[in-house]
């Protein structure tokens, strides 16, 4: 015996037995609420936020360092580093003389928006125009959770293989920029750049794709110019 009511609140399944409640509720609701709060905090201060996602060792921290060099003297950059353990990345960034906070996520494989929100509330963001958030290194969990960012940047190094967009489609679907890194190593690895471009475009037709090598500097200025231009859009 089952009775569905139109609002879907209660349905009697049997006398004195079970009742079905129709809920239709997002599982990530509390995370989404924290992301909305972050977005509001950033909007009020006109801070442009970038969420950097990649496998471990693809070059997130290196890209942050290149951005710090680009903005040196112009000021206004703050960094939040996410890692399961250690302050290694924060110490590396601190040497550049910018405000940096480390989030150690311990058992969690990504930065939780509620955690980022409380860190941002502790930081002095009065001079900040650009916030760089380095997520925990993996292509799965960080993709699932919005941190209220303005742009999501996924990095893929050529040593990881060109099948990554097919294996981890969500992160490529939700990213605004795809940065293919370590292109100086292309002669030594099997990596079909065109294949990656096609797969990434299938996941997100609007994705902007950059090919860079921090070692040779190839492609870096185009990427940094683009990020500087994106930052300038938030006034």
């Amino acid at each position, binding site marked *: 015996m089952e009775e569905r009511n139109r609002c879907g609140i209660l349905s009697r399944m049997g006398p004195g037995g079970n*009742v079905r409640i129709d809920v239709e*509720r997002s599982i990530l609701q509390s995370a989404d609420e924290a992301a909305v709060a972050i977005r509001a905090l950033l909007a009020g201060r006109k801070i442009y936020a970038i969420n950097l996602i990649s496998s471990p060792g693809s070059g997130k921290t290196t890209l942050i360092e290149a951005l710090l060099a680009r903005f040196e003297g112009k000021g206004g950059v703050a960094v939040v580093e996410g890692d399961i353990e250690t302050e290694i990345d924060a110490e590396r960034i601190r040497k550049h003389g910018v405000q940096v906070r480390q989030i150690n996520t311990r058992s969690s494989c990504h930065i939780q928006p509620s955690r980022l929100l409380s860190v941002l509330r502790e930081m002095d963001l009065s001079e900040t125009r650009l916030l760089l958030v380095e997520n925990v290194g993996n292509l799965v969990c960080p993709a699932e959770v919005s941190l209220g960012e303005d742009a999501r940047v996924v990095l893929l190094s050529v040593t990881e293989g060109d099948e990554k967009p097919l294996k981890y*489609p969500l992160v490529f679907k939700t990213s605004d920029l795809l940065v293919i890194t370590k292109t100086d190593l292309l002669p030594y690895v099997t990596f079909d750049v065109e294949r990656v471009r096609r797969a990434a475009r299938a996941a997100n037709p609007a994705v902007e794709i950059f090919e860079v090598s921090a070692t040779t500097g190839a492609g870096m200025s185009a990427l940094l110019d683009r990020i500087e231009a994106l930052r300038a859009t938030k006034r």
Partner: protein
Amino acid sequence: MHELGIANEILDAALSEADRHAAKKVTSIRLRVGVLRAIEPENLSFLFEHLARGTPADGARLEIVEEPIRVDCPECGLSEAHAFTFECPRCHGPNVSVTGGDALSILSLEIED
């Protein structure tokens, strides 16, 4: 192990709904999960079972309704549920767009009142 956080959110949501309806026990939870979420049902159920111990959702069954990806091709007009792909499964055109497959929600709960 990314299922751990998700199992926790499911439990919180289920318990708050159960509380709202003054339920003694939650016996099953029906979920919609997109294939892009890369959730391993066995892993999710295992973690949920562990987290739910001693709560009104102790022993509740998780039923997962999978949400597929849709592939749309502007060249040949194909629009169908398909595995993630970067070319059209019919005409092999390179400009396909992939939609859906990212759902993550609770559809309904079964409770004992």
